[in-house]
């Protein structure tokens, strides 16, 4: 009887076991962490094409790498026109591990933008953006713009020649906005020219405003993914028998959550075969993310991140 098992309280499952198991049972009763883990790990995903679906998790892994390396860069970086360049020049010349972290942050950013492009291309080619998944695409596109915003503001912060002129040109773009263009440019710059306030405002955008929006939207993006399920690609919806209608009906009846997807053509409501996310998909995800991070690890050390001459407003 299944019901008898459900009547056992989590804390009773730990009775008579070792202290670790009892401690876990105590914690589990109060947090429901096991249920949460099961919900997170045992989600059905299409069986075929798993390697193509690793790009989303790789994107997330790289964003977390940016968060991590970015937090560490704050150990040294000073957002001031007097000291920004000096603080980074100190890293490049005196603190090899700091220069390495800076290398991780730059190569992580390059790789992230590349992987987002591939992720979007995969989604486009497999038509995963179709009803009811349009907002997955829209939120993904917004996420891409936020990442581009982070890349642009990040390029300004070293306050070297490259950063200074990037700042000048990008803040100037705003003034072509009809009507309020001048005001917008002045808001970002903090005045008529690029100066100290421009740097502190750009810094605020880069480390708090854009990341906050990014992580909020990542939450929405992942919620939508879990709600509709991974679409995969058309290969996951092929029928084999002489009676495709019957086969599809069977498939829908036996589908595991989150399938069948509502508001979609029956043929694409549930994949023909699914596997659990754990450990099948997570293994592939891990392989791809590890490979990408290994490349960033090596490139960050060998090539690092360039630092131009200090900013000079004379052209």
């Amino acid at each position: 009887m299944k019901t008898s098992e459900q009547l056992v309280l989590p804390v009773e499952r730990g009775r008579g076991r070792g202290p670790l198991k009892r401690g876990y049972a105590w914690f589990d009763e109060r947090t429901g962490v096991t249920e949460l883990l099961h919900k997170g790990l045992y989600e059905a995903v299409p069986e075929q094409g798993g390697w193509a679906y690793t790009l989303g998790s790789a994107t997330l892994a790289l964003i977390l790498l940016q968060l991590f390396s970015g937090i560490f860069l704050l150990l040294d970086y000073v957002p001031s026109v007097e000291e920004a360049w000096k603080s980074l020049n100190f890293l490049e010349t005196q603190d090899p591990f700091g220069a390495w972290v800076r290398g991780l942050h730059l190569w992580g950013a390059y790789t992230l933008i590349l992987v987002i492009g591939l992720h979007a291309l995969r989604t486009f080619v497999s038509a995963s953006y179709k009803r009811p998944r349009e907002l997955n695409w829209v939120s993904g596109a917004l996420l891409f713009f936020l990442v581009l915003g982070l890349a642009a503001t990040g390029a300004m912060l070293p306050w070297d020649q490259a950063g200074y002129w990037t700042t000048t040109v990008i803040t100037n773009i705003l003034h072509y906005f009809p009507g309020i263009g001048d005001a917008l440019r002045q808001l970002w710059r903090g005045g008529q020219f690029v100066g100290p306030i421009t740097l502190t405002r750009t810094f605020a955008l880069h480390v708090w405003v854009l990341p906050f929006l990014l992580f909020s939207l990542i939450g929405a993006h992942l919620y939508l993914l879990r709600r509709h399920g991974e679409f995969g690609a058309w290969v996951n919806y092929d029928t084999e028998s002489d009676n495709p209608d019957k086969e599809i009906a069977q498939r829908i009846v036996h589908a595991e959550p989150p399938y069948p997807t509502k508001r979609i053509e029956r043929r694409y409501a549930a994949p023909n075969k699914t596997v659990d996310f754990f450990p099948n998909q997570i293994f592939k995800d891990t392989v791809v993310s590890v490979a990408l991070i290994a490349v960033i690890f090596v490139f960050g050390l060998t090539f690092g991140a360039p630092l131009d001459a200090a900013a000079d407003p004379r052209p």
Partner: protein
Amino acid sequence: MSRLTRRQLMIRGSGLGMAAVGVMVSIPALGFLLSPLFTQRRTTWVSVGPVDNIPIAQPTPLTVSIPNDQGWPTPAQPRIVYVVRRSDDPEDVLALSNICSHMQCDVHWDQQLGQFLCPCHGGLYAMNGDNVGGPPPQPLPQWVHRITIDPQTKLHVLEIQNSLNENV
């Protein structure tokens, strides 16, 4: 040894991969975090001035701009050096810091007490820097110092390094 199933291989492979990521991101980050422990300090000598005219047995606070020993070039910090002449010999000087050995508050020479007094917790030091009352566990630290002779004026010039002679 039990047979390794495909499932176990994937689980262990994932765990191993995540551990590899942990190692790869930790090496640069920890090296960066811990760099102050193995970075060379930047030590320099700065001149405090001639000591010949400083009264004997009268701790005299002088303000000296002391260069920072860390990071990129930044403005020097004004700090106090208590110059104490102990005898007629101009080389017989102490270059006491005003950093209390208890909690590193600023001590000052109290003329009435004839002792250095720390305002935070009432620590007391004798004229030679010995801790004589209150919580301080050690004497006042001295700046690393030396006396040089000015070739023109023949005066005895006190120079200090941007370092204390011991950890407090």
